C-alpha cells in the first residue's frame, strides 16, 4: 500500500517510470482475472490494454489514498462485462492465439500444467458471471471479500457466498470433465 502511495505520488509528478512499475506489478493479476472471465487470450489482452490505458489517463488526478488494486479490479470487471455483452463479440469467432506462459512451470511439466489451466479456465466459463468474478478477484486479483463487495456493489456476505458457490460449482464441473 505504501509502495503504491509512493508510485502514485511519482505519477503526479509526471514520472513515466512509475507507470511502468505499476504495470509490471499488476499486469499478471489483471490479465489472469480477465482471462478467467473471458477464457479468450486475445480478448483478455485487449482488456488488459484498455484497463492500463484508462489508468494512465486517470493517473495525473488519481487520489493519493485510493487503492490501485481496487481501481484495476473494478475496471477489469467492467471492461470484461462490456466485452461479454458486446454483440460483436463471440467467443467462437476469436482465434485463440498461442502462448500462455506459466510462472514456475519448467519445460517438462509445462504441457501438463497447460492442460490443467485450460481445463480450469474452460470450467470457469460455465460458472455464472457474478460467482466467476468473486472467485477470480479473490484468487487472482488478491482482493478481500470486503473489497470484492465494493466492486460488485453487494454486501461482504454476498460476495463470500458467491465465492463459495463458484468454487463448489467449479469442483462439480471439473469432476464431470474427469468422468467424461
Amino acid at each position, binding site marked *: 500500500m505504501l509502495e503504491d502511495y509512493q508510485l502514485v505520488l511519482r505519477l503526479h509528478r509526471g514520472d513515466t517510470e512509475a*507507470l511502468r512499475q505499476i504495470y509490471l506489478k499488476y499486469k499478471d493479476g489483471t490479465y*489472469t482475472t480477465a482471462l478467467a472471465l473471458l477464457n479468450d487470450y486475445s480478448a483478455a489482452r485487449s482488456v488488459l*490494454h484498455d484497463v492500463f490505458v484508462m489508468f494512465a489517463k486517470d493517473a495525473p488526478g488519481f487520489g493519493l489514498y485510493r487503492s490501485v488494486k481496487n481501481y484495476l479490479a473494478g475496471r477489469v470487471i467492467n471492461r470484461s462485462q462490456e466485452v461479454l455483452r458486446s454483440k460483436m463479440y463471440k467467443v467462437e469467432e476469436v482465434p485463440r492465439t498461442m502462448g500462455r506462459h506459466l510462472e514456475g512451470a519448467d519445460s517438462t511439466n509445462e504441457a501438463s500444467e497447460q492442460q490443467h489451466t485450460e481445463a*480450469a479456465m474452460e470450467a470457469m466459463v460455465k460458472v455464472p458471471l457474478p460467482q466467476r468474478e468473486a472467485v477470480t478477484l479473490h484468487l487472482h486479483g488478491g482482493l478481500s471479500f470486503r473489497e470484492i463487495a465494493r466492486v460488485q*456493489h453487494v454486501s461482504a456476505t454476498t460476495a463470500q457466498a458467491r465465492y463459495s458457490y463458484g468454487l463448489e460449482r467449479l*469442483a462439480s464441473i471439473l469432476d464431470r470433465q474427469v468422468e467424461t
Partner: protein
Amino acid sequence: MNGRNDVEEKLRKIRCTTPSEVDEQILVDAAAEFERAAKVQAGRSWRIIVSGVVIILLAAAVVFLMRRGEVRRERPGVTPSQDVIQQPVQIEKPEQPEIAPAPRRPEATQEDRPVPEQADTNPDTSGQAKLARISALAAAGDINGLAAILETGDFASKITAVRFLSRMSDPRAAAALNELAGQLDPDDPEDYFLAEALGIEDFGIPEEELEEAEADAEAETATEPNTPEVQKELPSEQYATGWLTDVNGYTIEGKIQVGQKQTATDANGAFSIERPSFAEFISSFGCAVSIDGQLGTVFHWNQDEDLNDIEIVCTSFASASGSVVDVNGQPVSNFQIEIVPDVNERQAYSRGEFKGPWQSKIETDGSFEIAAIPTGYPLALVVSKEDLSRRIPLDEPEPGEHLPLGEIVLEASLEENSIPDGG
C-alpha cells in the same frame, strides 16, 4: 474427485502472463495517454489557479465597495476621502460589546453574574438585541443567566431562554414551559401555532381527552414490541441493525424480511430487526425491497455473523417469463409459482415464509411473467400444481436482466431441473 480446497489451490496457482512485446505495446500506449493526460491536468491546474485569483480579487473589490457604500449611507455629509479614512473605525466599533460570547466561567462565579440587571440597563431593548443577549448567554453556557431570564424577562425572552435551557437538558426548562403554556390562549390561533412550535403537544386539549390518549398510547406500546423505543431497551444481541442502501451508497427507505420477521426502515434507511433464531440452521435468508418497489435484494445471514451495522445493498430487479406445459405438451393453468433460495442439501437454512416482491402474473394459456426478482443470491423457481412440480435454478440473475425460461414441463418430481433448451 476435486474437492473445494483442491480447486481453490489449483486456481490460485494459475498465473498467466503476457509476452514481452504485448507488454511493450501496452506500456507505449499507456505512456502516451499518460503524457496527454498530464498536460491536460497541468493546463487545468493553471486555469483553476488563475480563476481562484480572479475570484479573490473580485470578492475583495465587492467587499471594498460595499463597505464604502455603508459608510456613505450612515454619514451622508462626509466626503469620499474622509469616508475611506474613517471606515475602519465605523466598521470595527462593536455595537453591543456585552453580547460577545463570554468565556466559560466556573459555576461558582456564574452565580454572581448580574444578567437580568444588564438586560434592564441596556439602552437597546429591541427584540433582536434581547435575542442576541440570550444567544450569547447560551453560547457561553451560562445556565444561571438563562434561568434568571425566566424570572424577569418578558414572554418572548422567556420562550427563547426555555428553548436554550431545554437543549442543555436543564430541568427548569420543563417547569417553565408548563408555566408559559398556561399563559397561552387555546382559542387564539397565533398562540396555538406558538405552542406547536414549542412542542407543547397537549395544548388546548381537554384533560379527559388527554388522559384517554395517553392510555391508548401506553396500550399501543405494550402490544407493539417492535417499536424502536422498545428495541433500544433490549439487548443488542437480540437485534440486527443496519442500513438499506442503493448501489451508490445512498440510504433508501424500504422493508426488510428475515425468516418470519418483518420490519420497515426509517426515512434514513436505518433498520432494526429481531435477530433470526437460527435454531438448528446455519443461516437465515431475507429479502429487502425499497419503499417505491423499484429496488431490492436477497441476502442471507450466517449464525456466527456480526449483525450490527449491516449494509444491505438494493439493486434493480431481474425479470423472467415462460410457459408451463404438461408432459403431453398441453398448456397448464392454475399453477403456483414460488421463488426460493437455491441451496443444496448441505446447506440447511431457516427459510420461513420467503416473501418477495415477485409481481408474478399467470395467464390461462399457461404463460407467466415475473416482473420483480431480487438479485444478490442464487434463486430457484418452483412451479407446482397439485402433486406435479418443477424446480428451475435461476443462478444469480444480473440486475435488470430478463430470463426467458421457455417451456417448463410439469413433472411428478421435486428434483432440481436445469433450464430447458432454448430457454
